[in-house]
């Protein structure tokens, strides 16, 4: 499991963290320690007042942002690519190919960053901003709504 290529997605997604916590409560686990590619998250519950606070360690320099609070602060200065429609988000041109973009890639305004499928039509979505992809905020196959943030881009680079 730890040798796999990490799928696109943000391990610091609150939805994911919440379901991990629920899992821990349901099965009365005191600690979960997960590693996926270059990122790791450890949750611990119990007497310790800081229990259930996520502790994340970036293992490799070019991967996802360091800690959740730092990411939140940094998010303000990044541009966001938002969905122009309602539909289903696909990160690759087809299931067999690599994603259009991944974290670290440089994009220009007309780079296709993803496909959003609506009413059986596959729409290629352009970045409309140039810079470096800092984060992918949705997962392959997720339903997305109008205005939903899809990617965070560092427009300065």
């Amino acid at each position: 499991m730890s040798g796999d290529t990490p799928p696109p997605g943000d391990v610091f997604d609150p939805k994911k963290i919440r379901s991990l916590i629920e899992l821990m409560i349901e099965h009365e686990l005191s600690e979960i320690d997960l590693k996926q590619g270059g990122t790791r998250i450890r949750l611990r519950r119990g007497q310790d007042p800081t229990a259930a606070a996520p502790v994340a360690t970036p293992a490799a320099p070019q991967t996802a942002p360091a800690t959740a609070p730092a990411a939140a602060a940094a998010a303000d200065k990044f541009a966001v690519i938002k969905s122009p429609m309602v539909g289903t988000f696909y990160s690759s041109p087809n299931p067999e190919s690599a994603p259009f973009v991944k974290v670290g890639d440089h994009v220009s305004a007309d780079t296709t960053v993803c496909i959003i499928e609506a009413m059986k039509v596959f729409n290629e979505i352009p970045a409309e901003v140039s810079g470096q992809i800092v984060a992918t905020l949705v997962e392959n196959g997720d339903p997305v709504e109008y205005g939903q943030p899809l990617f965070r881009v560092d427009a300065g680079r």
Partner: protein
Amino acid sequence: MFKRILVANRGEIALRIIRACRELDVETVAIYSEADRGAHYLQLADEAYCVGPAKAAESYLKINRVISAAEVGNVQAIHPGYGFLAENAHFAEICESCNITFIGPSHQAMTKLGNKNDARRLAREANVPVVPGSEGLVTDEQEAVRIAHEIGFPVLIKASAGGGGRGMRVAANDLVLKTAIQQARNEAEAAFGDGSLYLERYIQHPRHVEVQIVADTHGNAVHLWERDCTMQRRHQKVIEESPAHNLDENVRRAMCEAAVRLVEVSNYTNAGTVEFIVDREGNFFFIEANARIQVEHPVTEMVTGIDLIKTQLRVAAGEPLPFRQEDIRTNGCAIECRINAEDPAHGFRPSPGRIERLIVPGGFGVRFDSHAHSGYVVSPYYDSMIAKVIVHQPTRQEAIASMLRVLAELQVDGVRTTIPRLVEILRHSAFVEGRVDTTFIERTWPMGQ
């Protein structure tokens, strides 16, 4: 019954539909524009998707986004509410082709009844009285006089290319008619590029009485009696009530039965409303049919005890109506007042803003249908109605007294509302005694007052 439906609307009607679904254990997917983000009623839906920016044309009316939301939301049906896409036959057709049930009539029935000409023809077929008029266009004065004598004076000369009340003239006798025809033709030519005219009997002091109907997919069509919506301002309904006050019982019955005949001949299914005007002599004439659930449906619900939204869902899911015509009775009197965020002191101009405080009335037979709450922001992008207050009492007199009591309790701080004008109307002797017609409000409170 459906497992999950999409509510293709906003505000109070979206909330109304979500409530009915929750009671039927049907999951809901709501849609919202950026202006409606954070509205409290959205939390009552199981899922909600943003479909665009504030402007309705960019969000609630965007068929592709609404359908996409239905697809990602994995719904089996869509309830269109009223307004927006509710009477858009093209939308109904697209739903059908996407295998999503449209909760309403078929697009064919919607088109048939939606076209005024076709609807009039169907009405005649079904032996439903229509406003007497010339069968087609009137080309010369002699013909005009002959037709006018057939249909009865006074007559209304209408430009067939006209609209919005323009290109209409009233003529009370032969002499006036001849000159009026000439003038009307010239005016129509100048204003619309088309001088074609037709004649209709001019109904003076009309009452607006409409009949609620519902038909299932098993051949059963019934009426749920009538609503009187005579209290209008600029063709917008202000107060609605059921039963229609002082309406001859035979006229009432004949009108309701006529509505059912029209529905049957049109292959119409689900809920709808057939509108009539009633003259001083008690003659009623078909005006138009509305192929949707209406704003004022709670009035009928209170007097009949039948939940119309649940009925719509059941009919759309293929169930037969659980009641027969003989089971449907009205009990007591229900009155509804529409509360709009408008400033009566400034010609009823819209009064958007933040509702700082909302105190909701209650008590025996009181129903408050609203998506508003303390802190709710009334935006300028949609219609100004923020609430419907409905009261149900054993008699009309008690209903009026109850409504006055309720409007005194209701507090909406932060925006101007039409409450003061509603109180004036309810206290007016003409309203109480039923001596009103559709021009009453505009005549009694002329523009700016």
